[in-house]
């Protein structure tokens, strides 16, 4: 009985732990790079709607922003999942809070992705 339970373990938590470390490290550079390219490289007077349109016409920028969106959402969602699983003890409310939370984040992700890919003011 115990042996069967031990063998039936999953590596989900291990994989999330590794993901948190890698995505956290990537996000530091992605966010700092984004801040640099948006606010330091260009002067404030150049930060216009047209400048953003110009940037987002390049696929590389779209990919950069989408990576930022995806990694930060997954990293944040998993961190919040840790807290939900730690602090909400009753099984039904844990399930409801998680479902609701994941749905909101999925909606934000879909809207962000559509906004980024379909962005075409011209």
């Amino acid at each position: 009985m115990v042996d069967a339970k031990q063998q039936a373990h999953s590596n989900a938590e291990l994989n999330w732990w590794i993901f948190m470390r890698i995505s956290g490290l990537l996000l530091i550079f992605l966010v700092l790079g984004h801040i640099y390219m948006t606010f330091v490289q260009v002067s404030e007077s150049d930060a216009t709607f047209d400048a953003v349109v110009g940037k987002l016409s390049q696929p590389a920028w779209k990919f950069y922003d989408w990576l930022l969106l995806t990694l930060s959402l997954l990293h944040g969602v998993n961190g919040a999942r840790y807290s939900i699983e730690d602090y909400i003890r009753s099984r039904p409310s844990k399930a409801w809070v998680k479902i609701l939370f994941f749905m909101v984040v999925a909606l934000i992700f879909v809207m962000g992705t559509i906004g980024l890919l379909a962005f075409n003011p011209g």
Partner: protein
Amino acid sequence: MQINVKILRFDPDKDKKQHWETYAVECQPSDRVLDVLNHIKWYIDPTLGFRRSCAHGICGSDAMLINGRNRLACKTLIRNVVTGNAGTITVEPIRGLKVEKDMVVDMEPFFDAYRSIMPYFIADGAPPAAEYLQSEHDAERMAHSSNCILCACCTTSCPIFWVNGSYIGPAAIVQAHRFIFDTRDGATQQRLNLMNQNTGVWRCRTAYNCTEACPRDIPITELIEEVKRAVMYQQA
């Protein structure tokens, strides 16, 4: 010197909830908190309940929350917790376990977690003709984790253990570490699989409370990280 000892009392026969009581005690700065508690029990209020056995910091019976930190009453000197005359120290039971009476808590969930990691040597194949040999270098790997006295200071200072009793807790992970990194032991895989369950090491959020609480100065958070990495390399 004269100090006030503020104790969180609970008598299951009389009280609905815990309440504070203060005792004025004459003591020396070099006395231990345990001496003061003994004085209260022997000369002021014999109904005070607390566990103690060896009184020399090795049996791990008298872990309690002294001035807001988990410590052993027998290893804590008055001069380190009280400044000046007429100072006050607070004494509470360790948190996260059910209080049975005063400082006495139900340790069963703690020992259940301990037993679940199989805290005994498991031989791999036939035993050698003489002793199981181990190099000094290999012994060093488990030098910290084998210092644990199972006082529960770490587990009952862990915020995840407070809110979620299904977490196995730092003490059990330290004990698992002691056998996982023992080169003579044969059940490393089994214990790593136990640590990989969602009640195991992945619930540790590296709050470092355990490391600060340990009266044996075991770098517990580091040991938990070592076990996490061992699980990772085992699964890779």
